[in-house]
């Protein structure tokens, strides 16, 4: 172990050994509690800024959950530091705006790759490099959804920086802004996955993303009430995927 890893990481405030081989990363610190409630046991490891970490066990399998805040910048920090304390699989759990028809609110979206519509990862490597999920994590997430009987959609998503340019509450004609991504078979938009995928794959760490579909962002009425049961299902799918990765010798 090099010197870098012997002290608590600057932002997540964790030491090696405090985080499980598989970590789930929501944006919202509030969702870490949803995770803790679903585990057989869970304990708080650290909380600094937007980074709240719990580690726990379910059916004997250790899993961690670290919130990384909103956007690519804090996500790239959280992912980098999780890797430095020894995490091998990182799974983003979150919400998104759906831009394709036939995806119902509450359905799961499993990302195979992300459009790199953000700038954080360009500091690491040229935009030519792909932001792809690891196929083994994608498989574990699919199998978890099938085991839990959750409807899911598999495909590419768009990560970008400016929420208030591409959401139902956006400035100006967001529909026109999004049309090219709809034409390119992008399922949904969100703000973090490409940072996770690029930072992880450059270092040989496996990553994936599962999201809960909100209302289609072209619907006039945005009814996103009662999302909590779906969010709980998504977190459970993340935990189940972590168990499957462990079973498959990947944790």
């Amino acid at each position: 172990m090099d010197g870098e890893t012997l002290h608590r990481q600057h932002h997540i405030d964790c030491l090696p050994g405090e985080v499980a081989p598989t970590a789930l990363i929501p944006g919202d610190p509030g969702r870490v509690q949803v995770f803790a409630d679903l585990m057989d046991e869970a304990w708080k490891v650290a909380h600094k800024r937007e980074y709240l970490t719990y580690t726990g066990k379910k059916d004997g399998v250790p899993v961690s959950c670290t919130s990384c805040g909103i956007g690519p910048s804090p996500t790239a920090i959280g992912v980098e530091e999780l890797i430095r304390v020894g995490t091998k699989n990182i799974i983003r759990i979150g919400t998104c705006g759906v831009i394709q028809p036939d995806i119902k609110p509450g359905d799961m979206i499993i990302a195979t790759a992300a459009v790199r519509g953000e700038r954080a990862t360009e500091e690491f490597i040229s935009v030519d490099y792909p932001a792809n999920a690891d196929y083994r994590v994608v498989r574990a997430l699919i199998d978890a959804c099938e085991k839990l009987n959750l409807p899911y959609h598999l495909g590419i998503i768009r990560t970008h920086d400016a929420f208030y340019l591409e959401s139902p509450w956006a400035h100006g004609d967001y529909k026109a802004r999004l049309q090219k991504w709809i034409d390119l078979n992008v399922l949904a938009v969100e703000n973090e996955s490409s940072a996770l995928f690029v930072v992880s794959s450059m270092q040989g760490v496996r990553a994936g993303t599962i999201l809960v579909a909100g209302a289609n962002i072209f619907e006039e009425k945005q009814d996103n009430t009662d999302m909590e049961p779906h969010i709980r299902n998504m977190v459970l799918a993340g935990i189940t995927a972590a168990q499957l990765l462990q079973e498959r010798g990947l944790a």
Partner: protein
Amino acid sequence: MEKQHHIQLVPGDVGETVFLPGDVFRAKVIAEHFDTYELVAHSRQYITYTGTYQGVKVSVTSTGIGGAAAAIAIEELVKVGAKNLIRIGTGGMFQTWLPIPALLVITGAVRGDGLTREYFPPEYPAVADLYVVESMLKSAEKLGVEVHTGYEWSHDSFYAGSVFSKLDILEIEKPWIDAGVLIASQEASTVLTLSTARKVRGGVILASAGHHQNPHNQASAEQMVKAISDATRISLETAVLLDKMDHPEKYK
């Protein structure tokens, strides 16, 4: 429907799975692995053979070298009914831990080419279809063939980015080598992005004779014939697995 401009095919001429070598002569080598095959069309560098393998209709269409030519073949193949596009090719490796020769199942590509920049915003990902990747890995295991998974750097200028270049290729390629990219070749970026956008499955399997770091240590011609044959056998088994997934009623 009129014949497609370049590949000279109409719907019905190809199976749902089409193999895409660059080399027009390698198309025949690939077709010889089918149970049956016949020549369907030949125009410029585009030659197509269609036949069967274990009862599944399969085809091979050569694309010529580079993204520009491959994109033409892909657009036209999708119009005549292709659903699974599998490139079978070669490249030069970046990672010295990979064996010589090696077979690589490509999971994604660095978009260092011009074709996809014209088609898609640069931030659009080049990702292989999950089911093609998994079927290739299952098939390789069944056949007892060692394969490795990872990314290809897709680029346009062979004489800038190969062991035959006069440039300092290891300097040019350093960002990709450091990021763990496995191999340089030219077409994966085109195959994978276009497949995603056209809602078909795209995949790539590459045979490699050696590393850019060691130009004088390359696999023999005989070894490469076997590696390409193995890549073809894996791709044929993959076509069968995809057919079973898409048409389970046929297998009851």
